[in-house]
């Protein structure tokens, strides 16, 4: 690999800066002493960070978003895994039709999906209290529907890297379908599964479109909370929570970079 030229580095840095500027702009706003979104003029304050801690609604919505993220990523990844494995192992002639169906939520307009899921969850609410409109499990199910196509894509790609002959070899040595899946195939796509889980969690964590349609007062996820704060009273606490989230993301990415570098030096 040849080294990039200085011009390329400068151009890349400019693009990165352009993409990151809106994120950076939110940082000073979070330190404003005023009660509304504004740049601080000379005076800086931590009152909105204090507000995050004082108002239990923020922590509750973060906890809710985490629960929904975990449940929906587990549901979507499990479904995606079963679907992709089935297609990979049995290669039915109508595999492409099935794949098209599964990927539909990715291309359908989000509003259409949202309305469909709204009626679906309203219907479920009539028969039970656990999974339905404005419940956290209901939101997780709605998220899982929206996220599953992405998990299918990731796991299908991971499976396409697996040498079919190792599955044939396992069969030849007398392995039944369970051994083939759990001892041979899954260990070889574990990184694909982890990536699918992680991406699913992130997609659920930031989901707002469908969430707006299927929640009202109980299941207030973090994006929903921020959206309400922005619409109702332009609360600078939104800027504060954004900075916290940005800091977390930077920390995670730095940690991943360091770990990857250490692993590659060792290997």
């Amino acid at each position, binding site marked *: 690999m040849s080294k990039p030229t200085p011009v390329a580095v400068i151009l890349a840095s400019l693009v990165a800066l352009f993409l990151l500027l809106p994120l950076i702009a939110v940082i000073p706003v979070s330190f404003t002493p005023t009660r509304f979104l504004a740049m601080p003029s000379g005076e800086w304050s931590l009152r909105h960070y204090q507000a995050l801690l004082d108002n239990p609604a923020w922590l509750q919505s973060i906890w809710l978003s985490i629960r929904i993220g975990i449940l929906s990523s587990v549901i979507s990844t499990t479904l995606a895994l079963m679907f992709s494995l089935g297609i990979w192992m049995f290669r039915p002639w109508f595999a492409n039709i099935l794949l098209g169906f599964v990927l539909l939520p990715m291309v359908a307009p989000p509003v259409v999906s949202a309305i469909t899921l709204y009626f679906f969850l309203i219907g479920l609410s009539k028969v039970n209290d656990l999974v339905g409109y404005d419940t956290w499990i209901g939101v997780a199910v709605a998220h899982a529907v929206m996220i599953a196509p992405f998990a299918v894509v990731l796991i299908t790609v991971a499976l396409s890297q697996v040498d079919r*002959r190792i599955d044939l*070899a396992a069969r030849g*040595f*007398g392995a039944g379908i369970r*051994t083939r899946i759990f001892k041979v195939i899954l260990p070889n796509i574990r990184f694909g599964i982890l990536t699918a889980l992680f991406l699913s969690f992130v997609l659920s964590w930031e989901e707002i479109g469908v969430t707006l349609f299927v929640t009202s007062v109980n299941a207030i996820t973090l994006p929903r909370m921020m959206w309400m704060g922005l619409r109702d009273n332009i609360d600078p606490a939104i800027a504060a929570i954004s900075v916290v989230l940005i800091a977390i993301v930077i920390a995670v990415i730095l940690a991943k970079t360091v770990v990857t570098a250490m692993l590659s030096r060792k290997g």
Partner: protein
Amino acid sequence: MGKRQGAAELTAVGIGKTFGDFHALRDISLTIGSGEFLTLLGPSGSGKSTFLMILAGFEEATSGTLKKDGVDITRVPAEKRAFGMVFQGYALFPHMTVEQNIAFPLQVQGRAPGEIKILVDDMIDRVGLRGHEKKRPAGLSGGQQQRVALARALVFEPAVLLLDEPFSALDKNLRVSMQEEVRRLHQELGTTFVFVTHDQSEALALSTRIGIFNHGHLQQLDTPKQVYERPANRFVAEFLGDVNILPLSEAQATGHGGEAVFEGRPIRLIAPGEAVTKQFAIRPEHMVLSEKAPDDGNMLQAEIEGVTYLGSETRFALKTLGGTPIVLQMPTREVSAGFEPGRMVWAGWPATQGFFVGS
């Protein structure tokens, strides 16, 4: 390891396989004897690999039956046949160590951990992988991966070992030493080996018998010496090595062979049972070049057109008086100094060499 529960005999009767309109195999009938080393040889697309996949149970035959020691196993799936198999490209489990790879078939069979350890240890010594037990396949050389694949396929003492072009990824020297290894394992274990290759010299060197495939048909099934020296047809003759084809003006059977005329010269063949045709074939290395006409045997006068030095052998391009091109190959130490392009010489061969071929 020592004693074995016995190698198996496989019998195919009228095996056919079609993929849509394409006939991959047509009416294959053969018996693979217990403890035999049978090679399925043919160009790519000849059906040899498809036949191996049917033996393994990964493909189902469209017609015909397959028997193991007389028991019909045509519809038995691969996982119930418990044959050992070495795949092209090895198909080792990348996430397992050498030890775990070799132990896999035993674990699937539910053997006791103590027994597994003993058998795996024995196999690791047998294929010379001591010191590499804890490595993963990615950390091994091609030859070592090949050894793991062999060990994994043999560790559970299968009655039949199937090998699908196992050496195609190895370089020439390694290939020869792995051939030795496979031959040694076959002699030690006595398992029935069925080996697929498109490499003629590999097939001739290793097998007790060779089955030659082309266009989905079994062309000939016989010992290496027979298929090489008495090929059933022109395809087999040309596939197994270079051969000179001499068009005959006359040919008749004599009871113990045949008599024919090529460009006005008589040719005699002593080979009882040989079907006489209008074409005579002789391999380049079965002829000898001399300055004077030999005292007996068959002979042709020809002009040297080119000489190629191959190290231990030297190859001559000749042209007969009638203009037929002939290739002749002989040991370099027997080549006289005067054999140079432009010289008229004699190419001779004993009456026991050569064969008649159909067109």
